[in-house]
């Protein structure tokens, strides 16, 4: 049963990722990306990471995709027909490199052994909140600072000169 769920989600995810790679129009690319994000959220659910799945839906599938669509609407794409799709020569050279890298990773993963489990988590969300707000409190605060700096940077970049 787990294998059936995994296979369906993996095929969905890989088809969507292929669409991101090869779709022509940027809006189609964003739609394929949204489909890939939904498949990712389902994969997180099947892995038992419920909070991660919810945050994936909230931040990625809502906020970030809307941001991309907003930027695409501000740019007149009709004038930029020559910048759709992919470079042929780079695809010719990049695809064997990616396939070889995947082969090497697959060999390592198939041959490797997992480390011994260090415990059993029954309530993942409760455990995660406890760890995040005790052991990882300082990185959490630094993450908020990163978001603040990014917000200021985006405002500065988007400002009209003069």
């Amino acid at each position: 049963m787990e294998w059936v769920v995994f296979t369906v989600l993996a095929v969905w995810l890989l088809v969507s990722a292929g669409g991101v790679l090869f779709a022509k129009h940027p809006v189609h690319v964003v739609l394929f990306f949204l489909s890939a994000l939904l498949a990712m959220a389902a994969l997180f659910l099947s892995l038992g990471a419920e909070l991660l799945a919810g945050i994936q839906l909230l931040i990625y599938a809502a906020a970030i995709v809307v941001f991309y669509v907003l930027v695409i609407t501000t740019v007149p794409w009709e004038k930029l027909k020559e910048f759709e799709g992919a470079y042929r020569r780079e695809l010719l050279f990049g695809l064997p490199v990616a396939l070889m890298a995947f082969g090497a990773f697959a060999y390592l993963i198939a041959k490797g052994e997992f480390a011994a489990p260090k415990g059993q988590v029954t309530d993942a969300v409760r455990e995660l909140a406890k760890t995040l707000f005790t052991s990882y409190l300082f990185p959490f605060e630094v993450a908020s600072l990163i978001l603040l700096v990014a917000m200021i940077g985006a405002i500065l970049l988007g400002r009209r000169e003069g």
Partner: protein
Amino acid sequence: MSLEKAYLLLSVALFLIGLLGVMIRKNLVTILISTELMLNGINLAFATADKVLGGVEGQIFAFFVLTVAAAEVAVGLGLVVAIFRLKGYEGSSELTHMRDR
């Protein structure tokens, strides 16, 4: 092959698809979307490690990856809009101002 190894293989495949997208796409916006695919592949590997090892640290690092992804989207799309407004183009092959020639 166990199910967890299949999850890890899927995350590697997603990362490499994103990497290929960064290499071959012509448009700056689609290049940014490909980097998001790479970050998603990493998050899948973190969640899988959590399931194997029975901890929660992987999910916490996945949250930090999400934070960095949000910051990257804000700054990256701001850069794309600024480049388009100042120079009037969106193709990655035209951005050669920092090349030495």
